């Protein structure tokens, strides 16, 4: 019974830790299926994390924080779309720029808004929402049904996104743009509009992931707090073979590394903690080297499209 409880506890942590990576991955997925390769999830999450804290601080509501974060994400998405779709700039370079912009802008704004102090400004954050009855199921009840609302949203997005991509007309049209924009164009699809929409909405979903870091997992902002989760999300998309369920599994596997590292740190196994915190990243690299070549990316991913 004790062991089962421990496992339940691990599962609880894993699901909670996986949520932001899952959100970022799903946002990226939407963009990837429109043919755009955005490596800027890290920067988008960072600015969103700050916006969430600011929104929560000034409006006194964590939901306002989330809204502000998603707005910030939309602006970053728009920026990416203007540069890569309309101006056809190199997507990787723009993505890298977005990361740098997100890091520096969030750092600067944080110091401007909250000062350079050793004590952080704590804000209203997401509360656990227990689902009646279901949360009482032994072992898995707490893990699955006693999470914060945004975690439920993240995991509910998986089937929603799957249905959208593979069962609806707009989903088919989006995928055709990512596979071959010329074909989509000749069949009357507005390629540029599709890419703009996918980027803006995708960035907003990524931003929700960022907001969860600062107002869900924690209740304050620290500089560079995303700590590579944006890149892990990139890896999760590839590992998950560009499918929502795959990304979910990938996010949970990568973040299980995080759980393991936490457990080992607490247990005091004598390995320096800096090495232990590497585990999720090492897991990502290993998984990618093994599975990346087998992933089936949308055929036109990363290639700019020019009409006519």
């Amino acid at each position, binding site marked *: 019974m004790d062991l089962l409880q421990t496992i339940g506890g691990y599962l609880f942590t894993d699901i909670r830790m996986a949520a932001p990576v899952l959100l970022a991955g799903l946002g990226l997925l939407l963009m990837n299926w429109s043919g755009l390769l955005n490596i800027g999830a890290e920067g988008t999450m960072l600015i969103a994390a700050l916006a969430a804290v600011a929104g929560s601080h000034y409006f006194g509501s964590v939901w306002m924080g989330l809204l502000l974060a998603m707005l910030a994400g939309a602006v970053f998405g728009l920026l990416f779309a203007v540069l890569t779709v309309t101006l056809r700039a190199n997507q990787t370079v723009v993505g890298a720029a977005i990361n740098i912009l997100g890091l520096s802008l969030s750092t600067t704004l944080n110091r401007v808004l909250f000062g350079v102090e050793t004590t952080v400004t704590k804000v209203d954050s997401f509360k656990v929402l227990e689902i009646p009855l279901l949360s009482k199921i032994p072992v898995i009840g707490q893990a699955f049904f006693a999470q914060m609302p945004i975690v439920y949203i993240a995991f509910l997005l998986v089937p929603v996104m799957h249905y959208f991509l593979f*069962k*609806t*007309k*707009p*989903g*088919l*049209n989006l*995928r*055709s743009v990512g*596979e*071959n924009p*010329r*074909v*989509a*164009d*000749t*069949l*009357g*699809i507005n390629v540029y509009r599709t890419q703009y929409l996918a980027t803006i909405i995708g960035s907003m979903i990524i931003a929700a992931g960022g907001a969860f870091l600062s107002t869900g997992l924690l209740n304050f902002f620290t500089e560079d707090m995303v700590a590579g989760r944006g890149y892990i999300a990139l890896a999760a998309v590839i590992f998950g073979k560009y499918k929502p369920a795959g990304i979910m599994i990938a996010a949970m596997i990568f973040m299980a590394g995080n759980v393991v590292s936490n457990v080992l740190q607490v247990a005091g196994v004598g390995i320096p903690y800096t090495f232990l915190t590497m585990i999720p990243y090492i897991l990502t690299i290993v998984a990618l080297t093994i599975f990346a070549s087998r992933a*089936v990316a949308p*055929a036109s991913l990363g290639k700019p499209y020019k009409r006519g």
Partner: protein
Amino acid sequence: MGVILEMENICKQFPGVLANDCICFSVNEGEVHALLGENGAGKSTLMNILCGLYKPTSGEIRLEGETVRFNSARDAMERGIGMVHQHFMLIPTMTVTENCLIGDKEGSSVKLDRKEAGRRLRELAERYGMEIDPDAVVGTLSVGEMQRVEIVKALFRGAKILILDEPTAVLTPQEARALFKMIRALTDHQFTVIFISHKLDEVKEISDRVTVLRQGTVVGTHDIDDCSIEDLARLMVGRDIYFDAVTRQQPIGDTLLDVNNLSLHREKSNDGKLLDDLTFEVHEGEILGIAGVDGNGQAELVECLTGIRKASSGEALYRGKNLLDLSTREIMSHDVSHIPQDRQKTGLVMPMTLVENFALQDYYKKSFGKSVFLDWSGVEERSTKLIQDFSIKTPSPYELAQNLSGGNQQKVVVAREISRQPQLLIAMHPTRGLDVGAVEYIHNQLIDQRDKGVGVVLVSTEMEEIMRLSDRIIVLYEGRAMGCVRPSETTVEEMGLMMGGRTLDDIRKGRVNGTPAEEKMM
């Protein structure tokens, strides 16, 4: 069978090229109308205008008597015009049904109704005698099946006029048979088919009427029953070829290049061959012309001979070495020069100066500088001399290649390659897109090289150029040599027939269409 479509006085001006020059073209309902012409005759441009991809510079399109204007492929499709492109517009990772449903706006629901669409597809396919599995992933289908999918896709979207752009170019003979049957089934149901081709046999076989294009203008529209294959060949290639042979100074010398059984497979080996068992010789002081419609293996042949591509089998002996085993650098260092087919993509580096472009081929040689340093003043001197010798019009040797006219760009390539004093010169489309003066100049350069005893391989699709310059001509068709002739001993008809896929032996035996021609019988 009334007139369903009229295109009147269609002109299309591309930068520097008038692709369609006042073309009038009309199609009757329910007929197969062939559009015949060589590469660059303007067939594809005309059809791209019809299906909404290009906008005409001037002219009018009338559909069932009503003037229409298309701004996109979708506009044309909504008026019932569907085009099956040479390169399929299909997404290989999706199923047949999904491919047909992309961009579909029918019905109010956002849900994809795969079942209903699949049922409709199956129905369509059955009605016109095609076999199609709507649930198959397109990438797993054969080329012939993909083409069928394209046709069904067009029908699914309501096409009444079907444009097929060189549909048999990618098919095996058996698949082509099946396609013809399908076309017949479609016209039996009052569909109209426009069939673009440069293959005479199939035009003769499948079409009701034929419109022949040459250099952007209509040569004529005829009932197919009024035309023999020879007539078609003459119409397509043109009567006005001048055969004034270029007087030669020297007799042809010894064998320089000896190509034996050269073959090149496609990447997937069962997809047939790009080059099929080619055997020929090039002598010193001889121009060997390689003729044929574009895309019949000429580019691959040149790439194999210059080491850019690895041949699958065979040999090309030159000075006791097999060129097929050597790298491009090694081949070039044995006095081989290459004038590539596309001066802007592979001949020159456009954003570099002429001086730099002149140094590209031999920059590593001692005469160009010491160790890793280039002797720039020497290179400049050399460039200035070449610019003078070849009368290249440029403000300075430091002008960027991209700022020169096409003719002068080509002269830069020719100057660079000829100044290397080659023994073997491989020139591909050396005069493509040039004005008359530049063409003349480059022809004289090639003749000059021949008279110096250089062996020249001249690949060209310009019949006139090939007939005028070559000592012997090999005609390529789908990677095979149809025959080897001397310009003085052949006719335009014969060349046209070979370019259309008949072997010289067959033609000379008088076997046209598999039956002895009548005049030979007598």
